[in-house]
């Protein structure tokens, strides 16, 4: 008998514990079961760390040019990844470039996500002619290559951080609109919505209380899957001489500047590219994991 008491207590304890198990705990226990998800999450954390604390951890000033130290190969004079044609430390510039990529990826996803969600809700909830007009518009835009669209818009409205975000968002909102619309259409048919309508709940209340919360998951999944696309698109456009302009260090314009030295100094075109690949890989792996976890129906698609 004496031994059963602690055992009972233990059982009770574990029940309480499991009830108190927070969402964050659940997130990490799910994450720990997928090594690709963990890898993606780790890369994203590293990126966020670099983009927040970048200025304090760069070994050199990323903007400081010193012509006598131009084109030093990696591991010379304390330059881990070498220097560029102006003698700027490439490692420091890559760290600062992380901030540009993170800002562009997240800002674009937010703007494109908000616009696309609003359009998707209007089209899916109100149906009728407004749905037809909006979705035709989406179809039309989707029948033009994304990267060319962003390039042309950015070249015309002018380069720069703010304008590349605007250009990417103009190119990106349509996917959100289409996905959110189909989610809203599916939700409208669900019993809890039809019964709310039957009991006379107002349209606005249904939208805010029932539809919007249920759109949160698809929006997050889609945004996380799109961020990688935005980061690669920005790098491509900055590489073509638009987008983020020098001397601001962005991985795309570093590759553009390094291009002229490809025959003599390989490190200029190698390391910023590796940074892009690791970033896009991390974001995509995390996005895939998030989709598989939050929306198991889509798994494997």
């Amino acid at each position, binding site marked *: 008998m004496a031994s059963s008491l602690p055992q009972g207590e233990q059982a009770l304890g574990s029940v309480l514990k499991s009830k108190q198990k927070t969402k964050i705990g659940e997130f990490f226990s799910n994450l720990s079961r997928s090594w690709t998800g963990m890898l993606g999450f780790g890369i994203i954390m590293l990126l966020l760390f670099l983009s927040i604390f970048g200025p304090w951890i760069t070994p050199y000033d990323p903007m400081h040019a010193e012509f006598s130290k131009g084109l030093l190969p990696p591991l010379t004079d304390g330059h881990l990844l070498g220097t560029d044609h102006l003698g700027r430390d490439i490692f420091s510039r890559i760290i600062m470039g992380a901030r540009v990529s993170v800002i562009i990826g997240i800002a674009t996803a937010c703007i494109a996500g908000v616009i696309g969600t609003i359009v998707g809700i209007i089209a899916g909830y109100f149906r009728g002619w407004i749905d037809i007009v909006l979705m*035709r518009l989406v*179809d*039309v835009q989707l*029948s*033009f*290559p*994304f*990267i*060319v669209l962003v*390039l*042309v*818009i950015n*070249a*015309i*409205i*002018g380069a720069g951080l703010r304008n590349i975000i605007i250009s990417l968002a103009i190119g990106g909102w349509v996917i959100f609109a289409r996905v959110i619309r189909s989610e809203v259409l599916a939700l409208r048919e669900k019993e809890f919505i039809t019964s709310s309508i039957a009991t006379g709940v107002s349209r606005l209340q249904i939208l805010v209380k029932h539809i919007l919360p249920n759109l949160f998951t698809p929006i997050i999944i889609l945004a996380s899957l799109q961020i*990688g696309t935005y980061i*690669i698109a920005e*790098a*491509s456009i900055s*590489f*073509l*001489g*638009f987008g983020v302009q020098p001397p601001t260090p962005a991985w795309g314009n570093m*590759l553009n500047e390094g*291009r002229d030295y*490809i*025959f003599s100094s*390989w490190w200029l*075109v*190698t390391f910023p*590219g590796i940074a*892009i*690949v*690791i*970033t*896009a*890989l991390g974001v*995509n*792996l995390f996005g*895939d994991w998030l989709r598989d976890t939050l929306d198991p129906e889509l798994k494997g*698609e």
Partner: protein
Amino acid sequence: MLDFVIKRFLQVIVVVFLALTVVFFLIRLAGDPTTLFLPPDAPREQIEEYRELLGYNRPLYVQYGDFMYNAIQGDFGESLRSQEDALGIVLDRLPATFQLAITSLILALFIAIPLGVLSAYKRNTVFDRIGVGLTVVGQAVPSFWLGLILIFLFAAQLQLLPSGGGGTPVHMILPTLTLAAYSVARFTRFTRSAMLDVLQKDYIRTAKASGVPTMRLIMRYALRNSLIPIITLVALDLGVLLGGAVITEAVFSWPGVGRLLWQSLMNRDFPIVLAGVFIIALIYAIINFVADILYAYVNPQIRVK
């Protein structure tokens, strides 16, 4: 079916029309093009004269109407630099783009289909993991960077191939590889999922149980039946290839429409930009049109909707 075809054809026209309209107004709102050709200290009369000569002093809607009226007849004006017909310059570059895109497409299919079939047939084995892994990594590699790395390896280090330019078949190798690699990841995924669908069917199990040899089972029974969804998916994806071609052409100085568009954007040579947008939108819309018709043809449910 005819209804569907007509509806989709009208959409092609709307796409091209809207693309031109948007780009036209963006260009006009971005600034007066005359300032690009005159020195900043040019006298007012000269600017006015130039504006009048090029018609920029008229109201915007008149300019737009005029532009559209001429564009319908294939007249996009003259290049602001070379004074040649803008559409003519673009059309001259079209064969080079087609050459690059088609060769890359064929190469990509030759790599992606076997890879996808293997990945699906050996589902959840090492082969599948490698196949899936390659597609995941492939999607993270920007095509322009892959191009740079190929230039570094084959032109700078091994000195086997030219780093850019056009003309000879040797010049085609690196851009073709780059553009093909850009599509391999997606095509492999299409093939894998189409094959997985078919491989679950009863007739495959029956054929397997009755002792049909593996190779025959895959080629005759499974791949043949998944070819239609693969082809439609690939056709729907060709626009992405076209977008990739623009970047690849810029990396390798390939004399196609993409590089021309890029250079004209750099030079702010707007008649060529508009003619280029027109051609790209038209090709892309036609590809989508054909792909949709194909898709509707093999999948009657679409037609009814």
